């Protein structure tokens, strides 16, 4: 069943178009940067963008920084929101269930395909960014690769830290996915589920910047989203990363639990 779901998702042109578009944006940014050599001043604009001018090897991290706030969550939300509600809309949900596919099993299969989508999307962006970065922005002398703290970084260290970033961003996206996924078991409209997931995200982003919401800030899902920048400090600053990982984990577990509890007990009337 898991294999079938994955094939269903990745057999769709729509899936690949969304991944292509995700890769397109950082590429366009890289083209402009390489043509003009005008980067945002350090400390402004998306993370790392000023640093990549001198070294394209840092560009994957910068590219993730570009797609993380909006584009990646949109793509993930759509895929996750579509999962159950989409089947309900086409009417295929009832035929899957009477085939029979156990309800828990269906959820696990859908969740697996969403997780794979998140990973593929994040990897695709990183790899495209690496290729684009090295070709357009140049690799620069190895010693020039520096951390945010200003110390040098060897290529292997850089590689490990980039992979950690990919996983951290993927985990954050799974948080968005679980909101949309839960909503997808609640409604028969994929659009409502996807937009619901995005609204939760926007809501959280607004509250994070609000001083009056200081007390709850640390528990908001997007609070530690940008903590992956800390992977590029020397030494790695684990505190926020760990917290972000845990907070996100709580959201994922609770929302998936709710999705399961709801879907396994509800009447399927679609």
């Amino acid at each position, binding site marked *: *069943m898991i*294999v*079938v779901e994955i*094939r*269903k998702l990745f057999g*769709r042109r729509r899936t690949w178009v969304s991944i292509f578009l995700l890769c397109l944006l950082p590429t366009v940014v890289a083209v402009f940067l390489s043509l003009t050599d005008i980067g945002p001043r350090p400390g402004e604009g998306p993370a790392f963008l000023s640093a990549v001018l001198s070294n394209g090897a840092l560009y994957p991290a910068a590219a993730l920084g570009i797609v993380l706030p909006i584009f990646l969550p949109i793509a993930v939300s759509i895929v996750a929101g579509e999962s159950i509600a989409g089947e309900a809309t*086409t*009417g*295929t949900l*009832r*035929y*899957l*269930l*009477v*085939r*029979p*596919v*156990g309800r828990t099993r269906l959820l696990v299969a859908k969740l697996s395909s969403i997780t794979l989508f998140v990973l593929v999307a994040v990897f695709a962006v990183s790899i495209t960014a690496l290729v684009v970065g090295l070709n357009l922005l140049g690799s620069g002398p190895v010693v020039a690769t520096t951390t945010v703290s200003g110390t040098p970084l060897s290529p292997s260290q850089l590689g490990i830290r980039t992979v950690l970033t990919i996983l951290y961003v993927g985990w954050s996206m799974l948080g968005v996915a679980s909101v949309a996924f839960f909503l997808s078991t609640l409604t028969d409209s994929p659009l409502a589920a996807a937009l619901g997931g995005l609204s939760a995200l926007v809501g959280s982003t607004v509250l994070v910047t609000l001083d009056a919401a200081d007390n709850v800030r640390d528990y908001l899902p997007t609070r530690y989203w940008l903590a992956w920048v800390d992977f590029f400090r020397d030494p790695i600053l684990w505190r926020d990363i760990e917290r972000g990982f845990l907070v996100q984990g709580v959201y994922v577990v609770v929302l998936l639990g709710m999705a399961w509890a709801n879907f396994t*007990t509800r*009447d*399927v*009337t679609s």
Partner: protein
Amino acid sequence: MITTHGLTKRFGRVLAVDSVDLDVREGDRYGFLGPNGSGKTTTVRMLLGLVYATRGEIEVLGEPIPKHVRDVLPEVGALVENPAAYPHLSARTNLTILDASGPPTDRASRRNRRQRVGEVLEQVGLASIGRRPVKTYSLGMRQRLGIASALLGRPRLLVLDEPTNGLDPQGIREIRELLVGLNRAGTTIFMSSHLLAEVEQLCTRVGVVDRGRLVAQAALTELRGETGRTLVRVGDPAGAVGLLDGRVVGRDGDRLVLAGTTVAEATARLVQARIAVHEAAPERRTLEDVVLGLTSHGSDRVDGDGHRTEQLQP
């Protein structure tokens, strides 16, 4: 094959199905009749474990539902309301995906999947459909595909909700012949319908549901009992009316409806009086008479009497 006891489903304040006791036996072609919104589809969904009953018990193939739904459903083929398929994929891919989603059985294994897909497409008349995506199909073709997917697992029991929806007369006949053939080969068929003529031609047993309640359940021949009146078609209707004075309760051209007599007595008297008898038979109730006598308006008709709307399915 299907037994329910006191099966009840309440959606909020709406009582969709009200203590229904179904009894579908092995080898039946069971017609589940009722006006629109009388609870047919909800009942079908409960039989398949899609909707959970508020009260009552369900047994399908001897196992309790929804508890053992996983053991039962591989042996059941179903069409619930409309057929559904992934619109961007072909019929063949849709069937293959659906089959791969569920557990294989002895009769429907992974190894004979390709063969089964070809078989069912042929059975429903979609053999040369090719690779066109389902979104280009006509209503009738989708319906055929829906029936194909119900047959895919070589089921012992077919549960079909309005199986001939959207088919033309030719298609209806084909599907009817297909279902009769499958039934002869041992498949029990449970179909719901609001088309009386269809049930009359296909089914051996009938259950009639009205506003969520099962108001009749019997063999078709039993329901369609004789009315006690006699129908004759004669060469000289005016003469016959004179002869059988008082017995004639209706006349339509050369056809007479007689009461208080039998076929034997009426024909004997007519022949004695040298009136030609073209046809003579006891009058039988049509299924339509029976069902219309037992049921109320469908819920798609909303008249002034507001109390009925409370019985609607949401």
